């Protein structure tokens, strides 16, 4: 199954700017992206619309991990999904050049909380993205499919277009 | 914007009427709308546009052209709305308002 994630260049730049902001204690920031979906002849398009930035006090100080967010963050994302009939994609940044990938803790933790979004939107896929300075990667959990699917393509639409990752 | 009550008034003709807004225009999807006698097919998905578009104050679109007793000018063909294609005959000057009344005015063309 091919999944193509698309967002505007403006949204991408806004997300990266937000994720680059220093935090009092978290080593990394995170956020959520509200998305809509459609099918195409090559698979599924995930279309990003709204970025949910997490305020500083929605993070939990936990030395074991670079970024831990609290239940308020999850509630905000779930509320968005419910209100807007949207898929939710978690997003964070590895601020280097080149293709990023998820750390083992990233994958382990994502596998725990991403499926929680099915509590509000059980028929929609949800997932997670990791951005770098010039590329991106993602995983998508489809309903009733246990293992996440690697997002095939990630495109930032704008002037100029940025093909951020995966097979074009 | 139709109320929930106004949507439910449509149930005898089409179970599950639902409102959609696309690019600022208000539509009511009417699944399997039951058409007047003599129409073929007897029921078809329809889309009632309650907003002004293309020179019509309201318009009734169908998932396919309908064969009826009257010769109608199907001047809207393969119109893309809500990522489906629709067809409509020319039946103008039906003002927007209560959906059941707007629908009745448009269906007059098929009687």
């Amino acid at each position, binding site marked *: 199954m091919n999944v193509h994630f*698309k*967002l*505007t*260049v*403006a*949204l991408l730049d806004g997300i990266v700017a937000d994720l680059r902001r220093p935090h009092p204690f978290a080593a990394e920031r995170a956020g959520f992206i*509200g*998305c*809509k*979906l*459609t*099918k*195409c*002849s*090559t698979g599924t*398009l995930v*279309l990003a*619309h*709204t970025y949910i930035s997490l305020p500083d006090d929605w993070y939990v100080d936990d030395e074991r991990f670079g970024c831990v967010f609290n239940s308020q963050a999850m509630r905000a994302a779930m509320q968005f999904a419910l209100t*807007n009939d*949207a898929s939710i994609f978690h997003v964070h940044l590895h601020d280097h050049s080149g293709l990023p990938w998820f750390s083992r803790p990233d994958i382990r933790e994502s596998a725990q909380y991403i499926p929680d979004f099915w509590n509000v939107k059980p*028929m*929609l*896929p949800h997932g997670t993205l990791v951005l770098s300075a010039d590329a991106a990667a993602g995983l998508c959990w*489809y*309903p009733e499919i246990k293992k996440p699917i690697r997002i095939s393509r990630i*495109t930032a*639409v*704008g*002037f*100029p*277009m940025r*093909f951020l990752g995966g097979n*074009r | 914007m139709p109320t929930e009550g106004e949507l439910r008034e449509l149930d005898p003709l089409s179970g599950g009427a639902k409102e*959609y*807004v*696309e*690019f*600022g225009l208000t539509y009511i999807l009417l699944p399997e709308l039951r058409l007047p006698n003599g129409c073929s097919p007897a029921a078809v998905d329809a889309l009632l546009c309650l907003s*002004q*578009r*293309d*020179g*019509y104050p309201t318009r009734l679109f169908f998932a396919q052209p309908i064969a009826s007793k009257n010769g109608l*000018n199907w*001047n*809207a063909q*393969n*119109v*893309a709305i*809500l*990522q*489906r*294609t629709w067809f409509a005959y*020319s039946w*103008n000057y039906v003002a927007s308002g209560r959906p059941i009344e707007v629908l009745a005015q448009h269906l007059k063309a098929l009687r």
Partner: protein
Amino acid sequence: MKDVHVRQSFLGEHSDELLASVRIGVVGLGGGGSHIAQQSAYLGIGRFAFFDPDFTDFPNLNRTVGATLADANAKTPKVAVAERVVKSVNPNAEVWAIQTEWQKDFDSLRACDVVFGCLDGFSQRAQLEESCRRAMTPLIDIGMDVHKGDPYSISGQVVVSMPGLPCFRCVGFVRAKDLDEEGRRYGVAGGNPQVVWSNGVLASTAIGVFVQMLAPWCSIRNGSRFIGYDGDAFTLEHDARLTVVSQVRCEHFSSITDLGDPFWKA
């Protein structure tokens, strides 16, 4: 295919690979679209979706690039002509020749990275823009008109609808009154005058805009999204309307409900 694109290497180290991997849609393979198909093949685009239900015929042979007298005699589908043109340059190109109205194959349209709109009429343009916006696909629209009068006058435009940026309605390219007027017209509007050279100018400009979108060779000028063509003076100019609205947030396609499939089923 070695060295075919060596003279366009200034477009970037990986531009060949990028262009070969992109899938473009061309909606309408008539006077404008046939030029687009030809030029994009020469450019090195590797994947094409062509949409047009129409056939080559004698009245359109004067402007359908790639079509032959034999095609007019045989009424070869325009998408078949375009496919043949592409494959004559790049036999490895992937071509989806969709001989129907584009509204009957949304799935194939949505799979395109960029769409070229080469249609007649504002209603068709508005619908195509709406569908492209739903799939977050940039749309490059071209069109020309021969204005009847004494004397005649030729004009045209290349207009880009880029998700997140002002749309056709924002820049005044598609107006409610034009849609209303078209909607009230009964039956087919009839054949408007059409000529090959203006279509060529506009198609070439659109291809240049497309290349800038993917592999810019210079800094992108803000005006390169609405270019007006004066076919009598032979000039291309940035349309002043874009300057006025370029900082305006598009309100026509801003809602989340305007994205994706309203009837999504997993």
